[in-house]
């Protein structure tokens, strides 16, 4: 079993993009550097508490939207624009979590020495489903593989516990799946969402 938690499809987080996510209620800023590295950080600039998910990527650094403080790959502050000549103290640092792109998904929180399997997949879509993870997993059925993925037709389904009420269903297909099949899978995922949310309400 794996400790890696999926937070996006690989295609859902574009190069240079930043997004806000939650893992079991903990808020994260997930970003993709210009060079292709993915990062998962606490979503809060240590300076004035601004959400870093509103920030902007410059090369291999993430900058806070509020005052443009720059942070490098290790989360340490590298530049404070209000004081261009100042070398920021090492104590100014954003807490980081392990983050990796593998098998068509972006994952956080696991052991970097044991990354998820590298199986070529193409991201399809991510759906927020208003049920706890265990409920959605039960409805999906199937046997999870070593990375926790379960089959959804010909697609792979990865589940993210957003908080204790919401689960994100991330889907990726084999790379050469036809557009017709991908649309059908997308519709099937929406139907599943309706069904499980109605079941939950009933």
């Amino acid at each position: 079993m794996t400790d890696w938690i999926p937070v996006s499809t690989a295609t859902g987080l574009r190069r240079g993009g930043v997004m806000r996510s939650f893992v079991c209620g903990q808020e994260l800023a997930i970003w993709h550097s210009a060079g292709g590295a993915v990062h998962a950080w606490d979503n809060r600039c240590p300076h004035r508490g601004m959400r870093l998910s509103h920030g902007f990527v410059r090369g291999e650094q993430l900058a806070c939207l509020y005052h443009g403080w720059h942070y490098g790959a290790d989360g340490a502050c590298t530049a404070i624009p209000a004081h261009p000549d100042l070398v920021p103290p090492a104590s100014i640092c954003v807490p980081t979590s392990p983050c990796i792109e593998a098998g068509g998904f972006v994952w956080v929180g696991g052991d970097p020495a044991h990354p998820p399997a590298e199986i070529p997949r193409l991201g399809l879509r991510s759906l927020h489903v208003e049920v706890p993870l265990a409920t959605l997993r039960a409805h999906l059925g199937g046997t999870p593989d070593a990375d926790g993925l379960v089959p959804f037709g010909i697609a792979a389904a990865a589940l993210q516990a957003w908080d204790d009420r919401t689960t994100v269903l991330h889907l990726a297909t084999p790379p050469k799946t036809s557009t017709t099949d991908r649309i059908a899978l997308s519709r099937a995922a929406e139907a599943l969402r309706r069904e499980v949310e109605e079941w939950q309400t009933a």
Partner: protein
Amino acid sequence: MADRMTDLTALPAVTLNDWYCVAMEVTAPDAFDTTLLGATFYVTRTADGWQATRPDGTPCRCQTRYDHIWLCPGTPDRDLFALPEADQSGRRPVPCGAVRVACSPLRAVENFLDIAHFPFVHTGILGSEPHTEVYRYEVEITEGDAEVWATKVRFYQPQAAKSAAGGIETDYMYRVPAPMVSVLYKTCPPRPGEWDVIAIFVQPLGPELCDVWPWMSLFDDETPQEALIQFQQTIFLQDRSILENQVPRLLPLDPRMEVPTRADLTSVAYRRWLKARGATYGATLEAL
């Protein structure tokens, strides 16, 4: 949102006995409810001027000043702050209406005191890269812990005001005369030697929700009123995108919670001043 049962007497006297802006005079209806500190007050226009009552029906003090209606939920222990420039001839008052922001009223004031965000939040208007440096400036707390003042503040601005044609280095002074009011004085492009005055009057609806009433007093006879208000609205809506995304929403007064630099001298003084006077409505003293 408003709770008629809010126990006003549980609030600290320094909060209860202060003055708060609750409406703009020209747009206020003859009678209206308004939320202040989580309670609903009732304000009406009478032959003798504006009158206000508390949720329990008892009267409280009310006055009009600086084109707005001000209310004291308790018993005022001092006059409304003085703003002598408001009466100076040649100036044009520009009340701008309100912008509702889901943040602590104190976060709204602190953001108003901040210049380092100009290049990133008000890009191309109040600041632009690479002109990001905040030069050394001075901060003082006036006698008797009365007010926070920041002086000798200087910043490069691409378009400092509606009346500014191009980029200029702008001089600023900042002033906090009450916990939920801030006034800035800035270089007035058409009239060297004078200062344009821009203020925000913050109405605390609750500890994490406020209406910000911007007000300006300018030497500008040419720009249409709508254009001046539009300019100010643009700026404040940009600020709102920041203010509604600061965590926590309450202003942290524990110095370990957020890391300031020299550019934040005004903010540091403001936080200390709030803490010293016990003006902690909208603040948090605990670490996250």
